[in-house]
């Protein structure tokens, strides 16, 4: 099995290297063959691993690949931990990645950077796999930053576009703010446990519960709280939680396949995965969990609102992703780690589907992304239409679809939590259900129904995309429907993940609540007597009314609530604030430090200043050295006289 574990990340890496370094020589077809077969091998082997670990129930594997470095007796290693959590992540990552690879053949068909693109996405798959397979913090951080690198490269893939290279720099820097906290968290882990190995750290963690650290003197904080919050700051960057969410909408400047793969299904869920992986640590700190919960709830609700006013099809889905990541974070906050990962999995499928569907629409519309110029596309693109509808239904939590099970489990978990902040979170996630349905079906109706608002040329050339595009849509639509029903009884509140996730007894969901989740059919029946389903239905109806029945109303509302619209349209002014305060402020500080500190103070005053004062001093000395003999003679006489005076009078007295 060990060779299989090793082959899973190595196969895509090999594909990336071949496509990246030799792509120019072997050509387009060979490049995508290499990249895709690399990922396909990884997917097939992941199935083998899933079968071995989950279905056969083998013991988790924890082993070292090689020792990266030894220092101070600490082994810094590269190694794998393969348990049920990893196995699920492997399937999600490799499957979505494979679909996106195939889809890319169609989407990037005419792009001159074709080989480069395949190299990047294969490299991404490698990095993400290293992240989820890691058994230690070092490799976790490696994967964490490596996916950030590839995300940077892919957002800026069209590097001629000013908006794209602005967005990729922004994404990298905002992520680095998160990584800043993350790295400090890792340092804290090492300081207090002496190890970076998960197993070792988790074993020692309970012993930390009494310890405190004084960051500000006089305020003793629990070590576990500090560690967990620092680590979570990393998750806030990668999983785009408020206030580090600002990079994700801009990342839509990249090509659509990577929006699906990286900025919806996999990379942005790394933070969720990480917190789930660290459950033994987070369980030790109620404060940290509360913090996670509140941040998640804010993200889930307020990012959803922004989805309501977007007109760019990809940005609607981007805000939807933010909001759904908020849901997952909320689940983590109430210790429903398994539920969070469950939603991560269902979301990966239906959100990748929605993005690839949007990409299909964008291809057909000749790279037009403004929904105000679409409409009625269902007649021209039946497969894209049906699959997108499935994706939207899954997203809003329609009973029976994948998203329904995971989202309902989250709402239930929040409802039964007594953590500080859970009241607010419950309202947020419930309101979020309505908002999600509203923006999802606003998009769906604007794109696929109503009158076609495109120009005549586009309309005449509208047609369904080729099979390399539509097949991945179909392949993703299937799990978007069925995956929730299959796994609900084990993943929602069951013991699916076994030892991979630990929840303390106080945080467990009561059995009488959890039992609803043991039968997929029973849950559907049960849901009809609860209100989330009706909230979702109301959202769909509202969308239908506003955008199909009375399309004049949104404009009126927009004028009537101009103030609110302005806030939403400007995304709560977060971008403007960051641009002025952080970006502008840093540049200003840099200029001040440079001009005032280095140039004026150090060089001007001290260095050149001392040179000048020596020059000034010597210029005075130079005055004395006139070269005239009588000046010197005069000076000598004066000197002699003064000496005499001193000897006679001064010494005598």
């Amino acid at each position, binding site marked *: 099995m060990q060779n299989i574990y090793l082959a899973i990340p190595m196969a895509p890496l090999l594909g990336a290297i071949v496509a990246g370094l030799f792509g120019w020589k072997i050509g387009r077809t060979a490049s995508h063959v290499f990249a895709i077969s690399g990922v396909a091998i990884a997917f097939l082997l992941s199935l083998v691993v899933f079968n071995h670990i989950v279905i056969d129930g083998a013991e988790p594997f924890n082993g070292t690949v*090689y*020792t*990266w*470095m*030894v*220092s*101070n*007796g*600490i082994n810094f290693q590269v190694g794998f931990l393969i348990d049920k959590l990893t196995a699920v992540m492997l399937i999600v990552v490799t499957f979505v990645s494979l679909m996106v690879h195939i889809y890319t053949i169609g989407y990037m068909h005419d792009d001159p950077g074709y080989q480069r693109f395949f190299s990047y996405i294969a490299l991404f798959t490698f990095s993400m796999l290293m992240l989820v397979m890691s058994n230690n913090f070092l490799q976790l*951080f*490696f994967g*964490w*930053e*490596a996916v950030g*690198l590839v995300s*940077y*490269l892919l957002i*800026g893939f069209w*590097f*001629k576009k*000013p908006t794209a*290279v*602005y967005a990729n*720099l922004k994404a*990298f*820097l905002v992520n*680095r*703010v998160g*990584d*800043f906290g993350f*790295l*400090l968290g*890792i*340092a*804290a882990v*090492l*300081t207090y446990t002496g190890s970076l190995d998960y197993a070792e750290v988790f074993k020692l963690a309970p012993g930390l519960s009494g310890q405190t*650290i004084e*960051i500000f003197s006089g305020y003793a904080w629990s070590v576990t709280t500090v560690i967990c919050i620092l680590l979570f700051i990393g998750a806030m960057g990668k999983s785009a939680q408020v206030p580090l969410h600002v990079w994700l909408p801009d990342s839509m400047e990249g090509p659509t396949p990577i929006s699906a793969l990286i900025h919806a299904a996999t990379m942005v869920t790394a933070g969720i995965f990480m917190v789930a992986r660290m459950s033994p640590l987070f369980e030790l700190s109620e404060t940290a969990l509360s913090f996670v919960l509140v941040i998640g709830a804010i993200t889930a609700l307020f990012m959803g609102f922004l989805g309501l006013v977007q007109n760019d099809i990809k940005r609607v889905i981007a805000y939807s992703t933010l909001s759904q990541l908020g849901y997952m974070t909320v689940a983590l906050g109430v210790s429903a780690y398994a539920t969070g990962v469950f939603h991560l999995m269902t979301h990966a499928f239906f959100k990748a589907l929605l993005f690839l569907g949007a990409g299909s629409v964008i291809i057909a519309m000749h790279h037009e992304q403004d929904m105000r110029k679409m409409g009625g596309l269902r007649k021209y693109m039946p497969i894209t239409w049906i699959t997108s509808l499935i994706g939207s239904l899954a997203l809003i939590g329609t009973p029976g679809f994948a998203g329904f099970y995971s989202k309902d489990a989250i709402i239930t978990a929040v409802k039964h939590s007594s953590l500080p902040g859970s009241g607010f979170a419950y309202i947020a996630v419930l309101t979020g259900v309505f908002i999600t349905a509203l923006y999802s079906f606003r998009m769906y109706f604007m794109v696929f129904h109503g009158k076609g608002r495109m120009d005549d040329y586009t309309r005449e050339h509208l047609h369904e995309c080729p099979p390399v595009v539509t097949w991945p849509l179909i392949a993703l639509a299937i799990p978007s429907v069925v995956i929730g029903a299959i796994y609900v009884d084990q993943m929602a509140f069951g013991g699916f993940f076994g030892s991979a996730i630990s929840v303390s007894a106080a945080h467990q969901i009561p059995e009488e609540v959890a039992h609803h989740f043991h039968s997929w059919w029973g849950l559907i029946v049960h849901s009809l007597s609860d209100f989330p389903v009706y909230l979702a239905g109301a959202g769909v109806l509202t969308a239908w009314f506003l955008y199909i029945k009375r399309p004049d109303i949104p404009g009126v509302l927009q004028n009537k609530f101009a103030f609110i619209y302005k806030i939403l349209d400007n995304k709560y002014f977060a971008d403007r604030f960051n641009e002025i305060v952080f970006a502008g402020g*840093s*540049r200003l*500080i*840099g*200029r001040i*430090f*440079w*001009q005032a*500190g*280095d140039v004026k103070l*150090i*060089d001007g005053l*001290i*260095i050149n200043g001392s040179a000048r004062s020596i020059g000034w001093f010597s210029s005075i000395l130079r005055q004395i050295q006139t070269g005239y003999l009588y000046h010197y003679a005069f000076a000598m006489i004066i000197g002699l006289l003064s000496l005499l005076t001193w000897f006679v009078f001064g010494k005598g007295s």
Partner: protein
Amino acid sequence: MLFDLPILSTLIWTPIIGGLIVLAAGEKRARLISLIVSVLTFILSIPLYTKFDTSTAAMQFPELHSWIPSFNINYQLGVDGISMPLIILTAFTTILVVLSAWEVIKKKPDQYMAAFLIMEGVMIGVFSALDAILFYVFWEAMLIPMFLIIGVWGGPNRVYATIKFFLYTFLGSVLMLVALIYLSIRADGSFSILGFHTLPLSLTEQIFIFAAFLVAFAVKVPMWPVHTWLPDAHVEAPTGGSVILAAIMLKIGGYGFLRFSLPITPDASSELDWLIILMSLVAVVYIGFVALAQEDMKKLIAYSSIAHMGFATLGFFLVFSIIDNTGSWRDAALGMEGGLVQMISHGFISAAMFLGVGVLYDRMHTRNISDYGGVANTMPVFAAFMVFFSMANAGLPGTSGFVGEFMVILDSFKANFWIAFLAATTLILGAAYTLWMVKRVLYGEVANDNVAKLKDMNAREFVIMALLASAVLFFGLYPGPLTEVMHSTVEHLLQHVSVSKI
């Protein structure tokens, strides 16, 4: 036959004699001979690694001859886990410098190459000298070729830059000479550096000696606030000069702290470690911001060098606060080894960054960021390398730039949360100034006709960049071999400084 020669002397004198031969051979054959000499020196340096005994902290490959017997000055050489990697780095970098000058230096290429070869020998001398006067001679001798390289082949403002460079470093080293002579008087006329290590000194004596060393080494590293000579020197220096300056010469300051300050004056170091830590953190944060404001690529990389070297000095001086916190000097090994790894890694990365700017400068004759834009369109291979090295400069895991910073940040948490906090800001600042430059230079539409006419790298430039990229990647993915050679020496040093001399 060849391998019976004393290896360190061979490494010092091969390039120096080679340099003289290059001078004698004249312009036509200068390039080829220089390349042969530099490659030969590198090959000769490999046994330093393969025959190195990692289990001992003692000086290896020792040589001892009487030099000036009347003053008890010896020609004494030897290396340990601190100096050995730096010597190999010197030999490696010199090859790249010779290659980078190949067809670029048109004015007196023989003298240019000879200056670098002689400097290589002298720098190896600095790293291997175990006699204080021998060390001082090499230390000062190093200034001459660098002075000439900047003064003769430098840019328009080279006179100001050379004088600033010379005065700064010279002033610092004079104080060091005074300290060395005082130490020798205390040591009954011996100039043995290892003898100084065990010399008992009062705290007052130590503080004065520490201060003298500090001035010399802080200027060399350079540390804030005596760093302003570096950006000027870099801007005026030819590419090769910048490479040697950044990759090797700055390391000599860091090396000095480990060879002199810490072991000779451990109590003063313990008293004044806050000062070094403060200066290092200022280097990381303040200089990071200053780098952000630069409009000249070379200045930006020069400032980035200062910020990165801050990690080296920080790592070296964490030991005392870590002992205060955890009670074990062993816990400081991670930070000190991190500082050393940072020095080696910065050698590769800064060399690559300066060579990259050199590639552009050779074509466009400007270093202003605003004169560029969209270079990736016309020079895709070059752009790929530059993005890679920029990421390494920003400390991306998987590159060598990550390893040292990671180790130092992890260890500084043991010393104090706020030290770690401030050090970790490099994650944001380092990425900001490096990648903002990448954005403005490489990305975007082709900015002007000059950029449109750019030709991608030729085979020679490609080889240089590929060599550096392999090194950066190798030590990023597997730094084990590098830290392995350091363990014994670092442990010995830490144990030594944890014992008071008073």
